[in-house]
């Protein structure tokens, strides 16, 4: 994070009374209430790519969630269905829930998909890396926002 961006974030925080964050190699972001209003990449994600990310096994969403994925045989039931999430939350709220759901609920089992600090015994292959990249987060946010049918 360069010094000027840092200073800008601090100013924003002071102005809105919220928390600025950015860890290691991750891009900084600003939390306002229960949301990260601004895109992590500065651009809109792609909902088609987002859907592919959500259903891909290695991204772990369907371990816990089910959703409108008729082609997927194995979907978890540890958490709310992703159906209708776009009607319940706006993009900024979805972004914070993906980036670091533990900021909203310290006891949640939902992993923080864009966080590298405060973790224990991470296997070497994953160490220092977020589960999803900023681009992937934006794609997933764009996709979840389209899930408006309850």
């Amino acid at each position, binding site marked *: 994070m360069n010094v000027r961006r840092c200073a800008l974030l601090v100013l924003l925080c002071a102005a809105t009374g919220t928390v600025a964050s950015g860890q290691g190699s991750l891009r900084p972001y600003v939390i306002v209430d229960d949301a990260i209003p601004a895109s992590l990449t500065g651009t809109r994600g792609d909902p088609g790519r987002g859907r592919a990310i959500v259903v891909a096994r290695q991204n*772990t969403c369907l371990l816990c969630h089910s959703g409108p994925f008729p082609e997927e045989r194995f979907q978890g039931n540890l958490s709310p269905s992703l159906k209708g999430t776009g009607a319940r939350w706006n993009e900024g709220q979805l972004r914070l829930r993906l980036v670091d759901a533990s900021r909203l609920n310290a006891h949640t089992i939902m992993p923080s998909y864009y966080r590298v600090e405060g973790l224990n015994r*991470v*296997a070497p292959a994953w160490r220092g890396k977020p589960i999803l990249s900023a681009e992937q987060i934006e794609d997933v946010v764009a996709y979840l926002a389209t899930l408006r049918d309850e």
Partner: protein
Amino acid sequence: MIVNSKRTQWLAPVAVMLGFAAIEVISAHAEIPLGERRSGYADLAPDTKAMQDDDTANPGMLWVQDGEALWNAKSGAANRACADCHNDARTTMTGVAARYPAFNSKLGRPIDLEQRINLCRVERQQASAFAYESKELLSLSAFIGKQSRGEPIAPPTDERLRPFLEAGLEQFNRRQGQLNLSCGQCHDDNWGKRLAGSLIPQAHPNGYPLYRLEWQAVGSLQRRLRNCIVGMRAEPYDYGAPEYVSLEIYLMWRARGLPIETPAVRP
């Protein structure tokens, strides 16, 4: 929501009275009430249950048979068989698997059943220790475990085990890995639910070593624990690490009273 309220609950120290009141554990959150504890067997599909129930269909019995042959085979510089010291395992080994890990005074720390087998290999038979997950070690521990089938898990009331039990409990509830999960979040808070296609069991160690359909082989409890640790994207410990022994001590304590099922069958 249920998950959260359960985990934020802090229980007062609970003195557990179940034959070994000496051990008292302070739990960080609601454990599964004793009356609701159930073996992973309870959640098996009917055909998997049938496979475990029938010794002629249970693939784990092949390992048990190999273990019996090893039990009776003279080995090492001492040219002695397990049977030369322990006679007929059907009588001398009953209940042993139900009370391991146990504290070893000479080593000054607890050891699991596999480590006990290897101590006999090295000290009594003057032979080399078997490698973890080797056919020999799995076979002998399956054979010894089978002698406790149906016996309730009965952890020793040995105060020297207490710090290791507490370490195991702490490990069970510590979040780890890139997914930042704890064992308890799945196995205490969400057992019975589905993690993608897999039913989450309560994580009882009462069937090990067991035949896992996914492995197409018999494997140890440590292999199972490594699977879960890798699943959390955490770094697994080396086989034989003291962390596995303390985790096993806690899992055995948590499963107290459940019958040993070795060699069990699991998906």
